[in-house]
């Protein structure tokens, strides 16, 4: 499998999610048991609905061998169903597909969606071609037909067959990678908007995960500005690009930027309409996990209920008690 050339200096995984001595002895893999997920997240935070994203399986889409990728994606989805999703009713899966072979990806969506155990189709931030390109239309069509949003989650940028992390070239340090990896999801968003994906697939939904939020504000301002001047190049993008975002795109919280003056964050994020576009995410068991109570405390009171559950409930079609 392709893997990162950058190594976290002190570990990718939260150190309290595994027994360090057992891991060092080679008898345990850190961080990935259902019991720990229940103990660390689902039970203490009273979670009613959680989306399980892939970790290593996210790299299948940047394998050069598309047939191998499609086979691995199917095997992963079957394993996820058997090992996690059937055992924990609060969990739904994000379905891994082979982005480099969109027809096979669409077939996988049609194979797994009827299980009712998946709540999204997963694509990694790393890609050979941005996800707005018409080559991906089979994926958008199948996901929409199944009523599943597409998740694009920061992962494996600069690895395998994907393009470089940014146009600056390959960075040297993990610190650089982790600071800049949101460039991938921003790139996919701009591609999806400029290619008119939401015109061709009016029911499509997109969730952008990780990589920071503040960057989207500037990118959307700039995209709207450019669209006014250059829209003749992309006439299928009929509306102002950011207008599609409020109807079709949702963002996740983790990792929230942490300015020295915490009050600045809400002011900077306000143009993203977080009260209708932002959904809480943990990133458990990764090292930069965010605790929901801590996360919500840093945001304005009137944003908290939609971020905690209401926006996600609407997105995933989860019933919410009237009194909630």
């Amino acid at each position, binding site marked *: 499998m392709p893997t990162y050339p950058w190594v976290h200096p*002190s570990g990718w995984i*939260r*150190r309290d999610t595994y027994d*360090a001595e057992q891991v060092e002895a080679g008898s345990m893999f850190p961080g990935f048991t259902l019991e720990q997920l229940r103990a660390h997240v689902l039970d203490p935070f009273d979670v009613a609905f959680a989306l399980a994203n892939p970790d290593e399986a996210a790299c299948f889409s940047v394998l050069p061998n598309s047939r191998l990728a499609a086979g691995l994606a199917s095997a992963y989805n079957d394993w996820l169903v058997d090992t996690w999703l059937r055992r924990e009713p609060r969990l739904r899966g994000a379905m891994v597909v082979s982005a480099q072979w969109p027809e096979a990806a669409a077939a996988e969506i049609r194979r797994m969606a009827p299980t009712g155990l998946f709540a999204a189709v997963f694509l990694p931030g790393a890609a050979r071609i941005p996800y707005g390109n018409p080559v991906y239309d089979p994926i958008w069509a199948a996901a929409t037909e199944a009523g599943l949003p597409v998740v694009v989650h920061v992962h494996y940028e600069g690895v395998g067959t994907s393009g470089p992390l940014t146009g600056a070239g390959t960075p040297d340090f993990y610190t650089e990678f982790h600071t800049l990896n949101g460039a991938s999801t921003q790139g996919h968003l701009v591609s999806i908007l400029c290619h008119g994906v939401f015109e061709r697939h009016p029911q499509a939904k997109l969730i952008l995960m990780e990589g920071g939020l503040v960057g989207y504000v500037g990118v959307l301002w700039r995209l709207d500005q450019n669209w006014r001047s250059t829209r003749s190049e992309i006439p299928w993008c009929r509306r102002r690009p950011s207008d599609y975002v409020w109807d079709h795109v949702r963002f996740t919280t983790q990792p929230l930027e942490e300015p020295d003056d915490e009050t600045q964050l809400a002011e900077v994020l306000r143009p993203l309409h977080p009260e209708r576009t932002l959904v809480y995410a943990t990133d458990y068991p990764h*090292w930069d*996990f*965010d605790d929901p109570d*801590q996360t919500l405390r840093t945001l304005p009171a009137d944003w908290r209920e939609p971020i905690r559950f209401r926006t996600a409930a609407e997105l995933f079609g989860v019933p919410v008690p009237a009194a909630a």
Partner: protein
Amino acid sequence: MRTLRFPRSEAPAPGQVRTVESGGRRIGLVWIDDELHGLADACPHRGAPLCTAGMLVHRVESDGVRVVRHEPADRLRCPWHKWDFDVRTGACAEAPRMRVRRYRVWLEDDEIVVSLAPVRD
């Protein structure tokens, strides 16, 4: 002065952290330079179990060319966001506003005594 008492056998070995618990209060004990230090088992940044799951690491400095590792390992690294806290002061060098709560700790006969009074620098 309110104190908590634990058997001496609860003390950590030098270079290790050991968490003791009493009345819902979890306190990490650390031996550094023949002195026993006490820190709250809660990271002031996001509430992670700093002592239960954190690890002692060395302070590392560089002048831009050479890298110097200081002895002993006197920084406690948070298991989540990997911030480092000085065991002696509770301070995070990279985020000066962040300081983990400290407890005064001493040995008395066969017991470890932890004072719950605030530590003032």
